[in-house]
C-alpha cells in the first residue's frame, strides 16, 4: 500500500465518502479495499459465478463512485453498495433472460434440498446451495443486500406475495440446513453477538 493510501486506512467510511465525493479516488479505493470482498461475496451468494460476481461488483463500485454524493451516511456504505450491486446483478439476469428461466425452474423445485451436514459450523454458502435460484435471490436480496420484500419484488419484477413465499421457503430450508441437531450455538461464536 502506498504512503498516500495509508492516511485513508484510519478514516471512517463516511469521511472517505466525503473525500471521494470531492474527487479523491484513492479514498474511494480504500472503501473498495474494505468492502470489495463483501460485495463480491454477496453476488456469489446470489448465484453468480466468481468471475461474473467480480464484474458486477466492479461495475457496482464504479456506479457508486459516480453517485457518491447520493450517499448521505444514513446507512452503512457497505449496505448501500450492496444494494447497488444486487440490483445490477438482477439487471444482468434480466438482460440475459436468466431471471425468467429461474422463475420457471422454481415452480415445484425441491430438488436442491439437501440434508444438514450438521458439523456444528454454519456454512451459509453451502446452505444457500440448497435453495432454488429464485429463493436464493430473494433471501440474498432481503438478508444480504438489506432490501425490503417490496423492494425485492420491485427489483425482481415479481408479485410481493411471490417474493414473500420464496423468502419463507428459503428461510425454512436454511433453518433446516443450518440448525445444528443439538441446538447449540449455530456458528460456534457467541450466541447473542
Amino acid at each position, binding site marked *: *500500500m502506498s504512503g498516500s493510501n495509508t492516511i485513508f486506512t484510519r478514516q471512517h467510511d463516511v469521511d472517505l465518502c466525503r473525500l471521494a465525493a470531492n*474527487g479523491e*479516488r*484513492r479514498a*474511494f*479505493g*480504500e472503501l*473498495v*479495499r474494505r468492502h*470489495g*470482498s*463483501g460485495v*463480491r*461475496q*454477496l453476488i456469489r*451468494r446470489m448465484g453468480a459465478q466468481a468471475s461474473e460476481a*467480480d464484474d458486477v*461488483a*466492479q461495475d457496482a*463500485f*464504479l456506479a457508486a*463512485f459516480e453517485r457518491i454524493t447520493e450517499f448521505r451516511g444514513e446507512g452503512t456504505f*457497505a449496505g448501500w453498495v450492496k444494494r447497488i450491486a444486487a440490483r445490477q446483478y438482477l439487471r444482468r439476469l434480466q438482460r440475459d433472460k436468466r431471471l425468467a428461466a429461474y422463475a420457471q425452474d422454481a415452480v415445484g423445485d425441491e430438488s436442491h434440498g439437501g440434508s444438514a451436514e450438521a458439523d456444528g459450523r*454454519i456454512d*451459509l454458502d453451502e446452505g444457500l446451495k440448497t435453495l432454488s435460484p429464485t429463493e436464493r435471490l430473494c*433471501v*440474498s436480496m432481503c*438478508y*444480504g443486500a*438489506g432490501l425490503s420484500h417490496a423492494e425485492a419484488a420491485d427489483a425482481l419484477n415479481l408479485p410481493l406475495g411471490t417474493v414473500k413465499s420464496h423468502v419463507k421457503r428459503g*428461510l425454512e430450508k*436454511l*433453518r433446516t440446513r443450518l*440448525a445444528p441437531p443439538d441446538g447449540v450455538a*449455530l*456458528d460456534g461464536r457467541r450466541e447473542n*453477538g
Partner: protein
Amino acid sequence: MAEFDFERRLERLFSEAPDFADAQAFAERIERRLDRGWTARRWLIGAAGLAGGLIGASQLMLFNVFQRVESAEQSARALSLGLARATPSSDMLSVLSGGYGAWIAGGLAVVAMGFAVSRVIEEI
C-alpha cells in the same frame, strides 16, 4: 429459535464475508478504471474547451476585431481631446449596431458556450 433471531443471525452471516486473497488487486483494478475515466474526462473537457476557444477566436479574427479595437482606441483618444467634439460611445454603438457587432457577439457566445459545455461535462 425464534424467527426473528434466526433472521438477525442470517443477516449477520451475510455481513460476515472473509477478505478475498485478491482484495487488494481488486481495489487497484477499480482505482485504475477510475483513473482512466478521469483522464478521458479531462481530455474531453480540454478538447471541448479548445474547440470552443478556437471557434470563438476564429470568429473574432474573421470579423476584424483588431481593427475595431483600433477604432475604439481612436475614439478614446478623441474623448480625451474633448467631449464636445468626440463621441466615442456613439462610434462604438454604430460599430456594434452594424453587422460586425452581431458577429462579435456570436463569437463571444460560442466561447461562452464552449465554457458552459466544458462545465456540464465536468459535472456529469
